[in-house]
């Protein structure tokens, strides 16, 4: 097998955010635009409260000065924005109420829309990620740790959810608010705004520094967590050894080293995350005090106030000054609150981008290619020896050529397989197979024997095109297998692997996995062929017993029998049995053997086995060593040769 990638991306690739947003926008353009508009209304609504509080207090003071009732009639109120309106407090309250209602509706609309968009997008994302994963070549799965792939579907997708549903709206809301507030502040006083701007820059530096540290510790924490997880798994699996050597204390000691490492990173990550809020909030408080003092100085010392609204002179206009100060301070408060809120999202953004980046890496992997134009079809044989294609399941198959000019050509499937001088390497450097020549005539049983890593499984990986060969040719009934549609090639090969992978579902469903249109009767028949029927009937609910967790409620031998039944129902013309009976003891193996013997009848079969008793009756036995075939022949031939096979057989030499 090729080496597993240990390195996983810890930080986001550049341009990830842009790509993610593009995907999002392409799928839900209208929802996003509507949300954005509503978000703007929502922000305006929120800001209006500050302005209207200021207007209302100014109006009250103005009314007092003019000696009128502030709640009725119209009187002049010169606002802090430099314009004068004729109004009263009742009007102001009504207008504010209307703005609020719009704001609340907008808030509801965007929250709801974004919630739905987030979930739908994640659904699409998850589905296309899974669909893409299913199309990836086996190489991807051989070179990536299972845990790492799994964590994309759990942790990484969740960080994307947090980014879209929380961090992104918060980012926009903060951005909008800050911009609005900034311009509002400018209408009051440029000098005081400058104070706020300096504060803002200071806040940004703080966010970058502390937020950066926090994120980097969070990423380290993920790493330590993975190590702890690995250690726990190793210990549970090796618990028996730990027990029989009374090694518990030592093992706890070792675990504590990793545990403490996790504690350190986790503590640092949390501290940096926790102190952000008080720091930012109090920078906001400092800013508030500074602004107030600045305003007071402008007023008292009669400094020339500058503002975009031409609100120039304050001296001698105390009520205007009062209104301006109140408005400005409130604005500075809103400003710092928003920056503070945003600072809380930094970690989510960094982690979300790292997660998205890993997922996108998977989606960027090249899927399996397929240029085949030869298809597999079922045929009905006529008495005169001719045949024709049928859509029903029969035991006979033919290859169907679909030529470029649209014409069809049929060739009966016989099951003749030839590996002609095949070279292969997983990594492009070290040859795993060297000049391998293997042929199997229709109906023959070919055995592959050799030590782990000799290249037995590699040969079967090449026949069903899990990997493509570097040099040489593989022919199936004389057809180069590159010309056969991959799906059809694989359908024509029944495979039973050493690792029996069962799926969540009933026993019946697991058998039917071999051929989806198989009837219950056919499945039961297959189970009988594989000698699985008896134990299935003894299960609590027979064929309807639910299997879960890879069939963990069955013994290894029983799972193996089910996987043989699954292959039996597939009824493929060529079979590959890769160590199918390795984890079964010699007596049980006999039972299985009877099953597989029935299955092999009339089929071309490749058998890979550790135990030589399984392969003795083969038509030919190939002994592989370091990617080369070193001996070939029937059992009797090889025994006579007194070579490696002979030594293996007599037990003088063992396979690893």
């Amino acid at each position: 097998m090729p080496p597993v990638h240990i390195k996983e991306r810890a930080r986001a690739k550049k341009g990830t955010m842009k790509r993610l947003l593009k995907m999002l926008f392409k799928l839900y353009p209208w929802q996003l635009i509507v949300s954005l508009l509503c978000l703007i209304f929502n922000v305006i609504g929120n800001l209006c409260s500050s302005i209207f509080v200021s207007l209302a207090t100014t109006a009250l003071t103005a009314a007092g000065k003019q000696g009128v009732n502030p709640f009725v009639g119209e009187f002049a109120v010169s606002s802090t924005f430099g314009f004068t309106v004729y109004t009263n407090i009742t009007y102001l309250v009504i207008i504010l109420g209307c703005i609020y209602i719009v704001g609340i509706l907008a808030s509801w609309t965007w929250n709801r829309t974004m919630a739905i968009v987030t979930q739908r997008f994640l659904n699409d994302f998850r589905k296309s990620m899974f669909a893409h994963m299913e199309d990836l070549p086996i190489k991807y799965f051989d070179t990536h740790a299972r845990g790492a792939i799994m964590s994309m579907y759990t942790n990484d997708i969740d960080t994307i959810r947090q980014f879209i549903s929380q961090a992104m709206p918060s980012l926009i809301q903060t951005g909008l608010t800050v911009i609005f507030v900034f311009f509002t502040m400018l209408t009051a006083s440029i000098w005081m705004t400058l104070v706020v701007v300096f504060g803002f820059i200071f806040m940004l530096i703080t966010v970058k520094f502390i937020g950066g540290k926090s994120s980097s510790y969070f990423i380290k924490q993920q790493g330590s967590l993975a190590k702890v997880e690995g250690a726990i798994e190793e210990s549970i699996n090796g618990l028996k050894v730990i027990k029989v050597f009374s090694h518990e204390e030592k093992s706890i000691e070792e675990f504590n080293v990793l545990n403490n490492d996790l504690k350190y990173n986790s503590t640092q990550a949390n501290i940096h995350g926790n102190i952000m809020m008080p720091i930012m909030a109090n920078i906001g408080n400092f800013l508030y005090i500074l602004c107030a003092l600045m305003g007071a100085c402008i007023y008292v010392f009669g400094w020339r106030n500058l503002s975009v609204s031409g609100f120039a002179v304050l001296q001698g206009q105390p009520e205007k000054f009062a209104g301006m100060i109140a408005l400005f301070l409130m604005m500075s408060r809103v400003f710092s609150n928003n920056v503070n809120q945003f600072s809380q999202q930094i970690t989510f953004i960094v982690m979300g981008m790292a997660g998205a980046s890993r997922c996108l890496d998977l989606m960027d992997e090249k899927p399996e290619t397929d240029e085949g134009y030869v298809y597999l079809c079922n045929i009905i044989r006529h008495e005169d020896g001719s045949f024709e294609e049928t859509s029903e399941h029969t035991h006979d198959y033919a290859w169907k050529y679909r030529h470029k000019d649209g014409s069809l050509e049929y060739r009966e499937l016989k099951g003749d397989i030839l590996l002609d001088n095949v070279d292969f390497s997983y990594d492009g450097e070290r040859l795993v197979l060297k000049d391998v020549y293997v042929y199997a005539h229709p109906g023959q049983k070919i055995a592959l024997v050799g030590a782990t890593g000799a290249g037995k499984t590699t040969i079967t990986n090449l026949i069903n095109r899990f990997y493509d060969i570097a040099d040489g040719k593989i022919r199936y009934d004389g057809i180069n297998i590159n010309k056969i549609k991959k799906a059809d090639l694989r359908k024509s090969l029944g495979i039973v692997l050493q690792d029996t992978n069962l799926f969540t579902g009933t026993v019946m469903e697991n058998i039917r996995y071999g051929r989806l249109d198989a009837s219950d009767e056919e499945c039961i028949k297959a189970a009988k062929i594989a000698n699985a029927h008896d134990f299935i009937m003894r299960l609590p609910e027979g064929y309807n017993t639910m299997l879960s967790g890879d069939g963990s409620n069955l013994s290894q031998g029983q799972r193996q029998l089910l996987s043989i039944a699954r292959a039996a129902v597939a009824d493929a013309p060529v079979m590959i049995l890769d160590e199918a009976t390795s984890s079964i003891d010699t007596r049980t193996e006999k039972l299985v053997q009877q099953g597989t013997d029935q299955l092999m009848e009339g089929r071309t079969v490749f058998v890979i086995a550790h135990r030589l008793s399984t392969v003795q009756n083969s038509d030919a036995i190939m002994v592989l060593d370091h990617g080369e075939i070193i001996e070939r022949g029937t059992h009797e031939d090889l025994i006579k040769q007194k070579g490696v096979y002979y030594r293996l057989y007599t037990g003088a030499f063992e396979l690893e």
Partner: protein
Amino acid sequence: MFKKFKLILSSVREYKKYAILTPIFMIGEAGLECAMPFLMGMFVDEIKLLTTPDSFFHVDGSGIPVFYIALILLGMAIISLLCGWIGGKTASIASVGLACNLREDLYKKLCSFSFENIDRFSTSSLVTRMTTDINNVQMAFQMMIRIVVRAPLMLVFSAVMTFVGGGIMGFIFVGLIPIVAFGLFMIIRHAMRIFIRVFKRYDVLNESVQENVSGIRVVKSYVREEFEKEKFANASNAITTDFVKAEKIVALNNPLMNTSIHLSNILIIALGTLLIYKTGHYEEHLNDKGQLVGDWVGGELTLGQLSALITYGIQILMSLMIISMIMVMLAMSLESMKRIAEVLQEDPTIKDNNAPLYEVANGDVVFDNVSFKYKKESEREALSNININIKSGQFVGILGSTGSGKTSVVNLISRLYDVTEGQVLVADHNVKEYDLKALRDNVAVVLQKNVLFSGTIESNLKWGNLNATEEEMMRACEIAQATEIVNAKEEGLQSRVEQGGANFSGGQKQRLCIARAILKNPKIMILDDSTSAVDTKTDRLIRKGLKEDLPHMTKIVIAQRISSIEDADQIIIMDNGTVNAIGTHEELLKTNQIYQEVYYTQNRVGGDK
């Protein structure tokens, strides 16, 4: 539930002081945060009365000069910052510490478990409990000590301040708080119900991914990619439908907060201005510079207090929101706490005796009418009525098919499981009378699956005996025929062993594991199919070595190959959980059908034997 809660909290141990300090600092921060708007209102009021530079420092009549208020505020901000900082730090230390201790406790518990205990939890569920679940508890605990105290305090503080600063205006909130609280409660209740359901389905989805990742060869062999895609899409769609339902409810949260904040603002503005107008009067006076200054005075509310009220209003409603968030987090972590407590409360089924024996006198082993079930409730007995008598120093072979009970028998000797009926005696004492460590030190087991741990050859051998000298180690290697393995490596005993012993072949691992067991110098050695990957010649040499060098040690060998046990003092044939026959090679070859069958299968062509 409360008991479980207490059990989990008891793991906080040395971090208790941090856990107690945190809320104290949080209260300080909250108090200051509440007091500040009040002072800021005053500050703004005073600023408005400013006339000359002098008036920064002096005021006529009552009130504090602006400059001093600024200083006080500054001081408060600094203290608040410190409180927040320290509190944030202690909260992290306490919560992460709790998590760290919990992980350690769980790991220790795990090590104390018998196999019967382990069988009750699956590996993946134990890993989840020690990672995700503990993480949830950590977050919930941190929230609790930081915010559970702080948020209600903020609520109360702010509420009090509204009355202090705003007089009867405070009643606005008396009306608003219950309405908002009720709204939040309803949202949480409805959403939580859906979320809990969805999370379970989520597990199913993840399982399907896992099956596909590990079973990809099967999927591709049977060309089931499209089938799996559809299956996944259906599961994913179903979850999305549920999630959307829940999220729609949660999406009401923000608008509800907006509504309540807006409502409080509008009420404050409308009623506040009305109050000022009705109870106060507008007054103008000339200040030092001769300017006309005017403000509303004498009422139950001033304009400064009005802005302070708005700030308090926001604070009150925000605290409510935060409280609701904590409730959600706590509710979610309850499930995690339950799962952690389950492991902590699990009683190890095999416990040490109160007055145990520390001495194992010899290697006699007796099975006295032993029956054994893996689960008490299961009907099928894994072993029934086993009677075996082994004398110290004997070489005993055990043969039988998978599931016949060979491994179950030897597991009972080192007390990896306890018998259901009958008794197992070692050196004339029931195994239950011995100290567990003493027993296991004297019963060495070399397992079918040979596990080496990452480190060096030496560190692995020292599992057998921590104080073993190099000489002793080499001697053990010699008996186990592992000398050549050590010598072939440049660094000898110091050679690196990779995780799981990946850089050694199966046969090499088996031999090293046997050496490791020999170093324990046990009274009884059990080899559970542990020479399967060693060739027959080496196998024979190992047996010879054990016999000649360790004559007093009882040797129990489980084997598939007859050649491994041919010359045993007695061979036990296991079949279907019972002893089928006991005898020597010659006896069994004559009388026992199973033995004959196996013998002839293995020697069909005869070879050179």
